[in-house]
């Protein structure tokens, strides 16, 4: 059947610069470029191009420009290119249109409408290069009151996880991302003193040396979960939902279930790895509580147990229930959260922005007087340290970053993760592509990312006259809104700028 889908990208090759070295040919995992020996020229099959820019980056003479294909349908505010393309793709296959990465629709990004405070005159700003500046963050339930008798703390706190910066790497499963990508994130987390999340794809034995900096996930598929999986990690996270695809499960196709993936997930080679939409032992909040305590029992009450939900309309009430059900950490994943594969229609339309969810949850937990009982971690769409520090000011204890980590190791957000052919070796199942990530380089780049963001956060904290991040956490007075409606300011709990 003839496909009616037009190419998305246009390969512009400067023939003067092209030296026929073949690097574009060997780097494109979609076989877009090919050498024609008869004419001694490199050509492109543009319909295959995903706009990942791998070839452009690697072309030694910068001969390539990959740009949006200039084809035009008749202009129509309703029927835009994307609508027609998706519809044609659907008509080609009769299936669900898949995509990767986070929501790319122009939903309001509240971070861009929030601005930060800085000290002037009445309060000295602090220079983090010369004075102490603490980003140390502890995840875990805190008591409402500390009992000190004769100078000694009575009893002990529930388990606490120390982070040297309030930034962690999101759940990305082995199989969804390559071994090298996962290894790099775990190593970087270990080196910088933060955590990386295994996602629900199990945890390879050789990566368990990074246990002190690893969060293991217990999701609806329960892949790779056993006693050692739980106990060798720093923290356990129950995944109820994911920002990119609230309400639905996951599906790793059988062809990606290679022997190492199968071994890690504890399933037969070549079988589809299906994560059901709900956890089939959790149909209610009391069921969740039972799983939380089952996991605490299994880990001897030594590990914090987190519960991750998609940010949905009643997130505040659900979060309250989760805290009361015994979770040590509540994780909220907003509508801009990334994914390796999700139905495009769900990614783009289900859930709420993380900023609003966070503000509502933090406020609700405070109103109920239970905010100390659990840490709040947020995920979904963080792009820079400004977003992170605003989240902290809104009330988050820490954030998860996924896409920024991947971008740091090459990702260009081409959204084709689900093909398994990631030319950057990040979400690739093919071992030929996985090798494109040198874990030494990737680890360094990730550490650089954490260091850079952390330093920026320190600079901004210093500017506010704050030298410990807990003094900004939930301190919404240091935020002001710009260009927001009253109801938005109210949900966010901030004043408009100038007020």
């Amino acid at each position, binding site marked *: 059947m003839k496909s009616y889908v037009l190419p998305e990208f246009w390969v512009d090759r400067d023939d*003067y*610069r092209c*030296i*026929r*070295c*073949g*690097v574009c040919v*060997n*780097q494109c995992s979609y076989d877009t470029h090919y050498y024609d020996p008869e004419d001694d020229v490199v050509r492109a099959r543009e319909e295959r191009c995903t706009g990942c820019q791998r070839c452009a980056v*690697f072309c*030694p*003479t910068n001969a390539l420009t990959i740009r949006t294909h200039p084809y035009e349908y008749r202009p129509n505010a309703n029927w835009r290119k994307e609508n027609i393309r998706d519809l044609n793709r659907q008509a080609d296959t009769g299936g669900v249109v898949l995509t990767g990465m986070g929501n790319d629709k122009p939903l309001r990004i509240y971070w861009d409408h929030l601005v930060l405070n800085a000290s002037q005159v009445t309060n000295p700003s602090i220079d983090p290069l010369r004075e102490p500046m603490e980003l140390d963050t502890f995840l875990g339930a805190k008591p409402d009151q500390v009992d000190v008798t004769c100078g000694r703390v009575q009893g002990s706190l529930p388990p606490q996880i120390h982070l040297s910066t309030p930034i962690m790497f999101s759940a990305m499963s082995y199989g969804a991302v390559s071994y090298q990508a996962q*290894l790099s994130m775990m190593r970087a987390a270990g080196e910088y003193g933060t955590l990386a999340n295994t996602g629900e794809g199990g945890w390879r034995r*050789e*990566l368990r*040396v990074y246990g002190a900096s690893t969060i293991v996930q217990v999701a609806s598929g329960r892949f790779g979960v056993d006693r050692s999986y739980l106990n060798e990690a720093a923290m356990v996270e129950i995944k109820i939902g994911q920002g990119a695809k609230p309400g639905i499960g996951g599906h790793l196709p059988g062809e990606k279930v290679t022997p190492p993936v199968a071994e890690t997930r504890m399933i037969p080679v070549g079988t589809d790895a299906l994560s059901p939409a709900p956890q089939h032992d959790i149909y209610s909040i009391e069921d969740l509580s039972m799983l939380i305590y089952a996991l605490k029992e299994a880990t001897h009450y030594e590990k914090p147990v987190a519960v991750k939900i998609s940010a949905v309309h009643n997130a505040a009430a659900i979060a309250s229930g989760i805290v009361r059900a015994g979770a040590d950490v509540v994780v909220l994943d907003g509508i801009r959260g990334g994914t390796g594969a999700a139905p495009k229609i769900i990614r783009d339309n289900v859930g709420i922005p993380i900023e609003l969810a966070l503000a509502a949850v933090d406020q609700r937990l405070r109103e109920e007087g239970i905010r100390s009982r659990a840490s709040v971690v947020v995920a979904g769409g963080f792009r820079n340290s400004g977003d992170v520090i605003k989240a902290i000011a809104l009330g988050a204890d820490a954030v998860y970053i996924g896409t920024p980590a991947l971008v740091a190791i090459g990702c260009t957000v081409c959204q084709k993760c689900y093909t398994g052919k990631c030319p950057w*070796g990040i979400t690739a199942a*093919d*071992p*030929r592509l996985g*090798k*494109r*990530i*040198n*874990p*030494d*380089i990737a680890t360094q780049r990730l550490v650089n990312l954490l260091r850079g963001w952390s330093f920026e956060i320190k600079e901004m904290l210093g500017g506010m006259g704050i030298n410990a991040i807990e003094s900004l956490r939930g301190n919404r007075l240091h935020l002001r809104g710009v260009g927001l409606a009253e109801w938005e300011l109210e949900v966010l709990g901030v004043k408009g700028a100038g007020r």
Partner: protein
Amino acid sequence: MKRVYAREEVCMACTLCEVHCLVQHSRSRDLVKAFKRERPRPLKRLRVEERGPLSFAFQCRHCPEPDCVYACVTGALTKGEDGVVLVQEDKCIGCWTCIMACPYGSIERDLAQGVASKCDLCPGEEIPACVKNCPNDALVFAEEGELAWLSTTT
């Protein structure tokens, strides 16, 4: 002495090492001119081998006991004080005895000039062009004693 070693677990067969090696050994040292103008066309001094997920770049080991130097019938191949094995092109007669002798297959025929062509570790450069331009650190310039980590997979 320092040599160039390949880390096959991170080599992605992009062949940029070959491209930059060729340019380094061109007259113009310019990518476009080296590939498109210069005649005879300059030669790369290393090769990338690839099969499936396995790939690596390879060039002269500059052996402590270089078979090529010992085999050379004209004395065109020499091992200098610095350990670098070089071809003196004016002495080479293109008999390919060195190609026969080198167990590393690291000497190529420069057919245009009829002389042997091989890695010279980029004289004058602190780091050879292939190593410097490898985008994934799949080539390292190291002493033999520093090799322990070369086989790391984690």
